[in-house]
């Protein structure tokens, strides 16, 4: 298991090498830069937030916060970005998805940030379907099935989503940026791994009414490749291993495209469409 050590804050020094990966924020600014360090170590820099140094054996991550960055923000970034990439390099599959339990099986909602994964999962959780994760799900092949692993029992929502979906919990949380909400007492969490039944890839919200369209296994494989974490994009062994695991997953798991209007008042209709779809037995395996 990878350990996180937090060092005292320090100004982020210039890095002598060039990053091999650059991730832009939605406004075009630099959100993250990944660098190779000597002897197979990595430096993952989040400007203004923290530097994460990943040891060669992947066992230790040292976080140096930038001055003024909060410890919680550093821990969140470690859990949501750094750790999933390390898990992938260790041969585990972590997908960019939220996950709830429906009739004893896991249902994944997959998509880029801002597609509404957390809001949809929170809405289903509020309706009595236990939450496994609001973002980032480890999926593991076990015999002939796939199992989803729960993440920590918490939920991250933007304030408008939180106010709409979990009004009680939101009142107790602080407003501002997307923040973790103490959802205990408002929703229930599933805290053990369970079999995965279906995956829904979230569309861009252009649909006027909820629409669910099946994907071929080949389509879903390419879609999964875009929704996984990869520490080093030039690491061919890691890429090959990820491709192998995801092709197995695509053959086993029924995947669909799901699109719906992104209005909070439409969530009840979306939930019904999903539960009907799952209940119709349209989904094999």
């Amino acid at each position, binding site marked *: 298991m990878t350990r996180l050590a937090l060092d005292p804050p320090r100004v982020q020094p210039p890095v002598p090498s060039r990053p091999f990966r650059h991730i832009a924020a939605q406004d075009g600014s630099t959100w993250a830069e990944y660098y190779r360090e000597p002897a197979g170590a990595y430096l993952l820099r989040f400007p203004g937030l923290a530097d994460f140094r990943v040891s060669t054996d992947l066992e230790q991550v040292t976080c140096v916060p930038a001055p003024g960055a909060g410890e919680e923000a550093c821990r969140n970034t470690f859990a949501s970005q750094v750790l999933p990439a390390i898990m992938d390099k260790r041969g585990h599959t972590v997908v960019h998805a939220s996950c709830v339990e429906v009739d004893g099986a896991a249902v994944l909602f997959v998509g880029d940030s801002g597609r509404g994964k957390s809001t949809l999962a929170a809405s289903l959780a509020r309706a009595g379907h236990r939450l496994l994760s609001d973002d980032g799900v480890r999926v593991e092949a076990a015999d002939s099935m796939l199992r989803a692993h729960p993440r920590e029992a918490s939920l991250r929502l933007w304030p408008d989503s939180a106010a709409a979906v979990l009004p009680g919990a939101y009142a107790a949380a602080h407003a501002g940026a997307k923040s973790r909400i103490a959802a205990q007492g408002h929703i229930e969490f599933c805290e053990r791994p369970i079999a995965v039944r279906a995956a829904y890839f979230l569309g861009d919200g252009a649909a006027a009414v909820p629409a669910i369209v099946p994907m*071929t*296994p*080949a389509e879903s494989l390419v879609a999964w490749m875009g929704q996984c974490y990869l520490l080093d994009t030039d690491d*061919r062994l890691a*890429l*090959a291993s990820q*491709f192998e695991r995801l092709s197995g997953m695509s053959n086993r798991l029924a995947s669909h495209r799901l699109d719906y209007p992104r209005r909070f008042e439409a969530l009840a209709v979306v939930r019904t469409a999903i539960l009907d779809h799952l209940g119709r037995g349209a989904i094999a395996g």
Partner: protein
Amino acid sequence: MNAGDRLVVPQHVMARVVGDEYVILDLETGTYYGLDAVGARVWSLLAEGVALDAICDRLVEEYDVAREQARSDVASLIEALRERGLLGLR
């Protein structure tokens, strides 16, 4: 390409069957390619080292297609794959 040439899948190319299609990954560029069911059949025969003529025979048998058509389809697929570095000559 000559009749006697043997095609090989280079080491940096990975192909996996998903459903009835193939998805091919070029590990050097991180680019994916999809092959439909017929393309997938040709790919699997190529990967087994089956000769071009024999591949056309199989397509004629399995897909009710004229031999000339099969030959031209296989030739264009091979050309497209070779252009992208997904197939090489042994």
